[in-house]
């Protein structure tokens, strides 16, 4: 991008009245653990008590830096702080805050480590601590990996408690009453004589204090908010059409933009003619961007129309052009590229020397994220400052991208994080923010809102990779005796981290996640990962590797159990080595009346997966009707350590089951001539309400580590459905989507 020229340096104030639905938080200080006790530039009357609590004259603002994608992140972060701060949720406002290293995610690295969640040994513990430190050191402000709750559980409650302690100290000094005699309630400090000092009036004095070094957190028995059903803070806006997503941003003189880029990512442009598009009504400019063009116009529809009117000859895909060739590339990895063998128990060679009782190959396809809100971003370059507003899971990487493109220093690039109309991992990429920055640069001072068409969104997704598994196993005396699973897939971590410029090393656990790390003891048990070459650029998709590998592991397990003549629940329980996982299996058995007879043509399937530290078991009940397979009911049980919001957990678990089932039934991206053949929801089919079964969920809380539940309910859904179809029909389905083999009604 062209040089910057002269920039008027000045402090960057983010948000302010410019953000519809948002409000000012100004520049505030970020203290521990990134010691920067700057309190300069604070608007008068604004106090900062920890990086998470800001109080100004109008009230208390809680900073909720994990992105709201629909999973309820904003509400649970606010509740964790508010619980300790002693303030009702309806008395606070929330703000995503500025992208900052202080908002690092301490749990995001651990998920990729080659240690199973059930491994509580010293080495695993040290590795996790190192992962925590790495997250801190790199200031990884990332939303993902179902980590918002586990990462925030202590940190946010501590922030609330620290802020409360500072307010109590301020009140103590004001009143001349010992701190021990002061209490707090509903946003005020209460003195023994009944005097109430509101947090707002105490804030300026409290803001001048140092954060206490130690605070004591409430015992969960004292909780007023956590553990009880909460009303989501965004529920009214989302029920009245007043939530402002990226696609709803506006500003005076704003241009509406879209892009059209090579559907075969990276193929480039051989030639283009924009003359007809440039002459269309409302079109301001056609801008050349990497791999295609952007259009600036006076409304979105005209931009869409003009983008289509640009005549473009695309370059060829830089990867194998069709689905068959892509699968061949994956299959080739079985012969050449062993990436990991993290599970290797017993003597698998000896166990299988006499041949296998089950030998099968399984396949899963590429899948689009396709959040209902397509990729959008707002960018405005004026007075030497780049203002960005976007839904993103990686705000600091997005800012870095903008800085790289513009050459602007950090304090002249601001990003205001917006709620997203879904993400499912898609907004862990910042390609659309990159484009918005380029378009804003070309817009010469006018604000730009970039909106992708659905077709662009699907063509330019970074999909969940296809994968192939080869399984073999033996049974003996009615038991599973040997299980050998080899999985070949391209590396999500290498593809995604490569784009972020984060080095990866060693095996990619995502290739085998949800398979190698399962809590079962089989006399001979091996899981091998093979890294296929990167073809289509790929990325994290809700539950990542486990989304494919649970299908492989639990399908093979089911086949072996049937070959042994054993019961799928009883045999898994017999093999299970992890008490919380066993409780989950037992609970799903109880919930689903496992073992009770079903009418002919009906069947139950069971699957289990421990992912993101959460054991989750699901039973799917189907009926094979003359017209096709009907899913009647689903039962899902997960162990989350502690239930912080029962309503949201139910919502997330049901949503995860639906996500898993929907893609197991219909989801696939196929490729021809280097591009995805699915362009919209007519061909990329997804579950509609009429196909949705009854879903009964239960969250167990053993009191172990608190876990997030956004992803773990996804992996077991596909194998549970395939296993149920086998139980009902005798037909064993080894490839997704299942609708290629059966009809669903």
């Amino acid at each position: 991008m062209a040089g910057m020229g002269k920039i008027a340096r000045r402090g960057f104030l983010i948000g302010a009245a410019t953000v519809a639905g948002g409000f000012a938080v100004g520049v505030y200080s970020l203290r521990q653990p990134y010691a920067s006790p700057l309190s300069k530039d604070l608007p008068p009357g604004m106090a900062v008590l920890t990086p998470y609590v800001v109080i100004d004259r109008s009230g208390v603002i809680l900073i909720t830096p994990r992105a709201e994608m629909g999973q309820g992140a904003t509400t649970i972060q606010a509740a964790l702080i508010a619980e300790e701060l002693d303030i009702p949720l309806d008395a606070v406002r929330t703000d995503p805050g500025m992208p900052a290293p202080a908002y690092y995610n301490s749990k995001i690295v651990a998920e990729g480590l080659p240690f199973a969640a059930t491994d509580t040994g010293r080495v695993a513990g040290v590795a996790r601590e190192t992962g925590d430190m790495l997250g801190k050191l790199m200031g990884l402000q990332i939303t993902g990996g179902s980590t918002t709750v586990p990462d925030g559980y202590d940190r946010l409650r501590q922030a609330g408690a620290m802020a409360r302690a500072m307010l109590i100290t301020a009140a103590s000094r004001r009143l001349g009453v010992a701190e021990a005699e002061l209490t707090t309630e509903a946003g005020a400090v209460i003195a023994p004589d009944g005097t109430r000092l509101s947090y707002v009036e105490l804030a300026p004095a409290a803001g001048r204090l140092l954060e206490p070094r130690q605070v004591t957190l409430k015992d969960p028995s004292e909780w007023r908010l956590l553990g009880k059903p909460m009303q989501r803070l965004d529920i009214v806006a989302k029920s009245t059409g007043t939530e402002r997503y990226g696609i709803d941003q506006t500003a005076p003189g704003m241009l509406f933009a879209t892009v059209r880029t090579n559907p075969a990512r990276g193929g480039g442009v051989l030639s283009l003619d924009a003359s007809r598009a440039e002459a269309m009504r409302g079109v301001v400019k056609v801008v050349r961007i990497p791999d295609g063009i952007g259009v600036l116009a006076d409304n979105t529809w005209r931009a869409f129309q003009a983008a289509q009117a640009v005549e473009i000859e695309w370059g060829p895909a830089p990867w194998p052009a069709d689905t068959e060739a892509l699968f061949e590339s994956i299959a080739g990895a079985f012969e050449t590229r062993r990436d990991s063998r993290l599970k290797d128990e017993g003597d698998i060679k000896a166990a299988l020397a006499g041949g296998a009782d089950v030998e099968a190959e399984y396949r899963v396809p590429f899948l689009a994220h396709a959040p209902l809100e397509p990729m959008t971003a707002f960018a405005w370059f004026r007075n030497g400052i780049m203002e960005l507003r976007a839904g993103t899971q990686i705000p600091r990487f997005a800012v870095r991208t903008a800085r790289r493109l513009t050459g602007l220093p950090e304090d002249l690039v601001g990003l205001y994080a917006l709620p997203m109309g879904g993400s499912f991992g898609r907004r862990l990429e910042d390609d659309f923010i990159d484009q918005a920055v380029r378009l804003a640069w070309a817009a010469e001072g006018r604000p730009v809102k970039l909106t992708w068409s659905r077709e662009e969104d699907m063509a330019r997704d970074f999909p969940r990779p296809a994968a192939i598994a080869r399984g073999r196993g033996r049974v003996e005396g009615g038991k599973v005796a040997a299980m050998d699973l080899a999985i070949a897939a391209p590396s999500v971590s290498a593809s995604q981290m490569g784009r972020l410029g984060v080095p990866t090393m060693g095996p990619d656990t995502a290739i085998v996640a949800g398979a190698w790390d399962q809590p079962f003891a089989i006399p001979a048990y091996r899981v091998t990962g093979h890294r296929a070459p990167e073809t289509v650029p790929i990325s994290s998709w809700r539950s990542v590797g486990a989304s494919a590998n649970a299908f492989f592991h639990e399908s093979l397990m089911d086949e072996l159990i049937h070959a042994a003549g054993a019961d799928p629940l009883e045999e898994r329980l017999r093999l299970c080595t992890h008490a919380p996982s066993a409780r989950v299996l037992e609970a799903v058995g109880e919930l689903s009346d496992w073992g009770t007879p079903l009418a002919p043509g009906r069947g139950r399937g069971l699957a289990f997966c421990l992912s993101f530290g959460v054991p989750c078991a699901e039973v799917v009940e189907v009926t094979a009707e003359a017209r096709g397979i009907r899913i009647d009911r689903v039962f899902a049980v997960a162990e989350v350590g502690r239930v912080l919001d029962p309503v949201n957990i139910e919502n997330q678990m049901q949503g995860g089951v639906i996500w898993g089932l929907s893609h197991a039934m219909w989801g696939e991206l196929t490729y021809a001539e280097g591009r995805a053949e699915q362009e919209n929801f007519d061909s990329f089919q997804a579950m509609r309400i009429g196909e949705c079964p009854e879903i009964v969920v239960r969250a167990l809380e053993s009191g172990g580590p608190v876990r997030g539940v956004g992803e773990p309910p996804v992996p077991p859904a596909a194998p549970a459905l395939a296993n149920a179809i086998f139980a009902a029909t005798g037909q064993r389905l080894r490839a997704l989507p299942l609708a290629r083999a059966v009809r669903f009604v």
Partner: protein
Amino acid sequence: MRLTVNGTEHEVDVEPDMPLLWVLRDVLGLTGTKYGCGIGQCGACTVHLGGVAVQSCQIAAGDVDAPVTTIEGLGTPEAPHPVQAAWIEIQVAQCGYCQSGQIMAAAALLAETPEPDATEIDAALHVNLCRCGTYPRIRAAVRLAADKLREG
């Protein structure tokens, strides 16, 4: 051309083939109605045209021959419509992006069929795609909304 939206008449200068969706969002600034697919496959853009639920991405501005009601015209945060009140009480929304369309489809259903059975609910909302998977709660909210509307 003239359009009546949420009881207000507007004069808009747009191409007759511009979809109503984009007139609402980009010309009139009513962003509660969402774009999801542009081909009538997701229902995020559902509005009422003369009281009937339609997908506004499939209605050309020049073909709008009846008053339009959008989610903003149905109710407000301060005074939600009973369907919206049910959506809030049941806490349906996750990402919330499809919910304007879901609510508009449900409101049209209940205006026509005050006591829908499960099949009628599923049929009326069949086009409305929810990627987050809020369908179980949508069903519950439609039933609650029916109760609310009956009780007045």
